[in-house]
């Protein structure tokens, strides 16, 4: 297999809040095209870790490299322009703007970055493309706040997709979704992964097992184990810390 340079690397990434070490010298490597799930008990530092990666909070120590470049000092909005998109753990959309306008802001961003202004036709095309992937294209003018919660989460994913990211970070995306919605979500992520790398924080184990190429297990701010789903399932330390005793499912 040819050596592919990793898309995302962190070296000794650390974040402290006063006396608490939320992320503890994490070394992390993510090759392009992979679907990586990050799991762990509550308080393990998963959201803090991805917040450090996407730039929402600054690290106390360590380095972050994206596609070979050191982005540690880069502010969040510049990282987004480099190709990192993030959907929030608690859905964060523009409640008072229409579904169309929500996604338009992402499409507008990519059009501006490409230069040449924002022609209306290109904007519309981009919005429709992103929304049809999450099956929300029939509700363009609805105020986003009026959508059901599950659909709001999908809208946020569409906003991330419309940025045409190279790395899409999803923070507990299936929380609050019905079983049927989760099923179509899994299909969506598989389709996304054909063009982008996906980093996924999840508590829903069936989803993790179905989607992940590899799993990183975090506990107490550090990486406990890393490997394929089967390897993680069989790992005794992980079972003890997180999944329960070997007898449980």
């Amino acid at each position, binding site marked *: 297999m040819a050596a592919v340079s990793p898309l995302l690397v962190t070296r000794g990434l650390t974040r402290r809040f006063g006396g608490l070490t939320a992320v503890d010298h994490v070394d992390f490597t993510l090759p392009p095209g992979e679907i990586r799930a990050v799991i762990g008990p509550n308080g393990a530092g998963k959201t803090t870790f991805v917040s450090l990666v*996407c730039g*929402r909070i600054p690290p106390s120590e360590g380095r972050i490299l994206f596609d070979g470049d050191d982005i540690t000092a880069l502010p*969040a*909005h*510049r990282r*987004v*322009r480099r190709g990192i*998109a*993030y959907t*929030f753990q608690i859905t*964060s*959309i*523009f*409640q*008072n*703007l229409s579904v*169309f*306008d929500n996604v*338009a*802001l*992402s499409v*507008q*961003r990519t059009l*501006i*970055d490409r230069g040449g202004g*924002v022609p*209306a036709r290109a*904007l*519309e095309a981009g919005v429709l493309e992103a929304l049809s992937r999450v099956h929300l294209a029939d509700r*363009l003018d609805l105020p986003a706040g009026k959508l059901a919660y599950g659909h709001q989460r999908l809208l946020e994913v569409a*906003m991330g997709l419309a*940025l045409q990211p190279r790395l899409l970070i999803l923070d507990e995306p299936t929380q609050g979704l019905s079983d049927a919605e989760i099923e179509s979500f899994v299909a969506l992520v598989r389709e996304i992964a054909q063009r982008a790398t996906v980093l996924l924080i999840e508590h829903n184990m069936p989803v993790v097992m179905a989607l992940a190429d590899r799993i990183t297990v975090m506990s107490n701010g550090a990486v406990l184990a890393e490997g394929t789903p089967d390897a993680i399932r069989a790992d005794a330390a992980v079972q003890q810390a997180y999944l329960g005793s070997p007898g449980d499912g």
Partner: protein
Amino acid sequence: MRADTTARVVALHLAVVAVLAALFFVLPDYHRGVMARVLVLAVFAMGYNLTFGYAGLLSLGHAMFFAAGLYGAGLTAYHLGWSVLPAFGFGIACGGALALVVALLALRTTGVAFMIVTMMFSQVFYLTTLYYTTYTRGEEGLVLGPELRTIGLGGWTLELWEPATRYFIAVALFSVVFLATMALARAPFGRGLVAIRENEERMRMLGYDVHRAKLSAMVLSGLSCAVAGAAYALLFGYVGSSFASIQYSILPLLWVLLGGAATTLGPLLGTVFMFYAVDLTSGYTSAWLLVVGVALILLVLFFPKGVMGTVRRKWLPWLP
């Protein structure tokens, strides 16, 4: 989708300008003067609207930008004998420069702290105009003589105190800023500001440079307010400290709230209405600020979207 509304929007705005111009021929003399004043103050309100309405930053210090234009134009004309156009330009530049400096400092704070910081910077500006009373004559102010308010263009002479000239220049200035605000509100920049106001963190995570957007909004805002200030000095010939006082930071807030924040038409409506309301009241009592106080409380309690904001929400969603 958006293409459908452009024609309507542009037509509406041009119609407003046409009505304002035509009004001159209908109004009696006294009201021609009042409307000229109102239009210049409406430019001030539109400038404030950029910061407060579109960017969502409650500044309590915008008097300093208006006053920067006022004094920039007034002092250069009065003490240095500058002619109208250079004085006007200088006033605008002063406002822009001040806005940049203030924004760089004030945008390090948010919410209540931002309000207090802007209020305090404006207060320092006001106190400065009082302190250097040898140049500014403080509250008493400076009166610009007619020779300072004349523009010579080729063989033509424009006398700025002449009612018709003054009125139409006011309309022209208003129209420029009005149409510019319309264009800005519908452009990606304007829509970006509104979105930042809605959910700043989300905008940042969509790749937008939120700080730069707010900074630009404030500088544009300061420039517009300075346009109004410089125009006021040259059209009405008076430059005084009271225009830098906190009252002139609160009045545009009131005008914009009443007319409808983050709408293009709101500032004009609010300014016209409140100006006449105050004019009427001060005919009866010297306590006309009471009207301002009551209006502010009623607005914020029952009518926070203002007139055009409510119209837009209920009937005409395409209004910028």
